[in-house]
């Protein structure tokens, strides 16, 4: 009898505990997210060269005025060309031409093409030197993805004694176009 009563009591206690114990309900759900960034390159060219002191008989270079900054999430290249902007004198691709201050003159240009050299940056890019033309030529070949990687660009212009001094306020002028591409 005593044992029976104890068993009953125990059961009741267990039931009581079960019924008054705090209960936490929980459910879950999931969301799977996938994606792949599109291949993208962004380049910025800063700096121009004005009133460049071109010396006849010398290979004039400027390595400080122009910088190139590249961001790319895929292997990349940067190329340069003379896009003949501002109705440049035909046949002068890659060469500095006679500029009156507001337009190109009908003739006159330096004999040698402008050289553009991209700097090499260890593990990031390999630079190259090109004689500018009307077609894209690679001056930087990326070795890795980069974020705001800055490179010095060296501009070189050989001037001969046979390159005439221009009259008045005319100057030799060229616009270099940089194009970044992912490979």
């Amino acid at each position, binding site marked *: 009898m005593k044992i029976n009563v104890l068993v009953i*009591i125990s059961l009741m206690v267990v039931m009581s505990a079960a019924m008054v114990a705090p209960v936490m309900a929980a459910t879950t*759900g999931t969301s799977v997210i996938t994606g792949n960034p599109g291949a993208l390159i962004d380049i910025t060219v800063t700096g121009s060269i004005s009133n460049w002191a071109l010396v006849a008989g010398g290979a004039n270079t400027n390595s400080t005025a122009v910088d190139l900054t590249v961001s790319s999430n895929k292997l990349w290249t940067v190329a340069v060309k003379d896009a003949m902007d501002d109705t440049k004198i035909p046949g002068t691709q890659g060469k500095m031409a006679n500029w009156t201050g507001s337009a190109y003159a009908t003739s006159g240009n330096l004999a040698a093409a402008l050289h553009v050299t991209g700097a090499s940056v260890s593990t990031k890019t390999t630079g190259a030197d090109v004689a500018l033309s009307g077609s894209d030529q690679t001056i930087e070949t990326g070795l890795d993805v980069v974020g705001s990687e800055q490179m010095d660009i060296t501009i070189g212009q050989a001037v001969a004694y046979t390159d005439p001094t221009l009259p008045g306020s005319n100057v030799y002028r060229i616009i270099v176009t940089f194009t970044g591409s992912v490979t």
Partner: protein
Amino acid sequence: MSDCFQRSRAILLAIPVVLLVVLVCAGPVSAATIDISVSGNIPHMVLTPGSSNQNTSVHLNVTSDTATWTVSVKDASDNSKPPSYAGRMVEWNGTSSAYVANPAVFGANMTVTGATVPGSSGSSATLSSVDQIIETGTAIVTSLEIPLTFAQTVTYTDPHLTVPNHVYRIVVTFTGAAP
């Protein structure tokens, strides 16, 4: 001695009766219930380098019979994802349906934000392996639809994946709880 025995026996017999009465009077304590569901996946999230990309195409649906509920998020490192990358999207081979060995991994963790709607207060969590609350209920709700915002910052140093069928992937686990 006999009285004492009789008294003890009466007490022992009375205990279950008293307990029964208590239980009947108290009534059963019903469990609070919460049910949550997530409306779907984001199979091709637009990820543009140089920006914080946001997607609002998925929402949460909550039913709770108590006002004090919460919904948390975490990266449970499902599908054998290396736990060290918890919270970040990792390169996934869609052909073999497995994470890649030596994978590309986004530099930034994903952020999940629950909206504030009538019946719930939302908040933002930078995803990790630990549950973090993004919704705190303020009312009993039935099929409460809650907009979600998934945000992923991508930089140019997060490489574009070139291997076919390889994508960045993460599984976000939502857990609803009601005390």
